[in-house]
């Protein structure tokens, strides 16, 4: 069919006006601004003097920056792998159910993911309350000493990781379930003919075929948890926020509390680069996962 390229380009441009307006204003402009600010000594609001890479040179010597980097990594380690593992187990279990039972159990596992972080915070702050929390009975049962977990530096990250897994595993679980359902049933029928037991079937069929999804879930979770702020911030109020600082929280603290926009921007750029590098890697995985799914 004959197409008038010129009119078509004009129409395209017209239809893209809302997109360009939004992305230009709150995405492209702020991103460029962040990079520029990171080379200045600007306060939170207003311009600053150009200081070159000073803000970056300071980072390795900044104790709180190193700590926030370390805490973020520690949190990622505590949440990503166990969370993915639990989501996989649950998906395998739910996949075996059928009818209303499956629908109900699926909803029960997914519901926490749909809640606002503030709700998750209040639920768990109450459950792990030092004086009256039901969670303390679990510690008693395990023979451990009761402790105010969110006010203890040692317990803070594991506890927040536990809460985060509870909150976000539903998402990974859905992806695993989609992956399991995409495996053609004929493969299992063939395995059954071969007298394959549950463990062997999982190890030889389900696990290898799910590997692309597993890799995808791991990287999505990794990126998501690197950007953690909400839970850590909420649970650390009244605790020791300086000991449990994570990267986004440090950007927030430098900018909003210390009024140092330039130094905050340098931290933001660092996190930005880390996330982009991992995302490019994830994109490659996604292409692999998509490729194997389409067959």
């Amino acid at each position, binding site marked *: 069919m004959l197409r008038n390229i010129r009119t078509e380009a004009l*129409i395209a441009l017209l239809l893209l006006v809302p997109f360009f307006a939004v992305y230009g204003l709150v995405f492209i402009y702020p991103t460029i601004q962040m990079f520029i600010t990171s080379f200045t000594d600007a306060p939170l609001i207003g311009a600053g003097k150009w200081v070159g890479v000073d803000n970056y040179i300071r980072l390795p010597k900044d104790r709180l920056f190193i700590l926030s980097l370390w805490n973020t990594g520690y949190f990622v380690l505590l949440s990503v792998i166990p969370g993915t593992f639990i989501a996989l187990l649950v998906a395998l279990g739910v996949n075996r159910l059928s009818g209303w039972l499956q629908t109900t159990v699926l909803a029960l*596992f997914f519901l926490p993911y749909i809640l606002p972080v503030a709700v998750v915070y209040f639920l768990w702050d109450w459950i792990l309350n030092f004086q009256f929390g039901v969670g303390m009975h679990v510690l008693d049962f395990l023979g451990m000493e009761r402790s105010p977990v969110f006010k203890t530096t040692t317990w803070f990250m594991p506890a927040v990781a536990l809460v985060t897994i509870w909150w976000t595993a539903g998402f990974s679980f859905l992806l695993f379930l989609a992956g399991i359902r995409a495996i053609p049933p004929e493969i299992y029928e063939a395995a059954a003919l071969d007298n394959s037991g549950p463990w062997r079937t999982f190890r030889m069929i389900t696990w290898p075929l799910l590997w692309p999804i597993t890799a995808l879930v791991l990287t999505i979770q990794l990126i998501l948890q690197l950007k953690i702020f909400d839970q850590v911030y909420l649970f650390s109020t009244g605790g020791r926020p300086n000991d449990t600082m994570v990267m986004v929280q440090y950007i*927030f603290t430098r900018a909003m509390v210390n009024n140092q926009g330039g130094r905050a921007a340098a931290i933001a750029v660092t996190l930005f680069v880390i996330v982009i590098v991992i995302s*490019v890697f994830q994109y490659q995985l996604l292409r692999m996962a998509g490729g194997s799914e389409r067959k």
Partner: protein
Amino acid sequence: MNYATLQRWNLFGGIATVLTVVFALLWIFPIYWGIVTSLKPEDEVIRPAIELWPDNLTFEHYSNALFNTQLGLWYLNSVAVAVGVTIVTIVSSMLCGYVISQLQFPGRKLLWWLIFASFMVPIQTLIISHFELIAGLGLLNTWAGIILPQLIHPVIIIVYKQFFDNVPKDFREAAVMDNASELRILLKVFIPMNWGITTALAIVVFIWTWNAFLWPFLAVTQSEMMTVPVGITQVNDNFGVYYARQLAAAILAGLPVALTYLIFQRQVTQAITLSAGIKG
């Protein structure tokens, strides 16, 4: 399959089913416990034993949260912000997805690349620039100020493009023959054919926005402009901590999204799976 293997599968299946159901009940327990606690009088709340049902059921904490706090205002703010973000995101993403999927123009590849790249950018790192921008526009403590930085959802554009790509070419060609304008083709052909995915995407954008914490938390300093999730964490009673009251407020904060999910389970599941790049 021989008899021994079959027996092994049956035993395994039974155990797996029981374990899954028990684990599901444990998983939902924190929510159940929050609800039960919110229905107990304060003196019952702090008893050391685990009481799974209140002795004296009370709704006083709910009426307190609804009538003695600014929750009503916060609901209004949350609804306005979530609806605003949803409408702008869906409309602009739909147009953009259509243009990339159906039209030919110079720079199309570049635009697609830009959208994909923006998918990777951690929005949280932009908080400083966003704050400066919104403050500069004089929009702190306004709905518009809370809405603007939350409009970046490139994944919605990507999903729309994929769905529009799957519309058979004949439909568009027939419409073009009839001299229909592009906007008309989008409205009369592409959107009606993709109504299901539009509903699903709108629902999850609404849920994401309702749940957002970091930006609404930064953009608002006046308690009467807060969204629900920010409001309940920032405003405390002046006289000590009342667990049941806090939990009642928290449950009211989560109720709209929980109900939305329970009503639109299929759509939510589909849109969330698609947003991760997997065909649901």
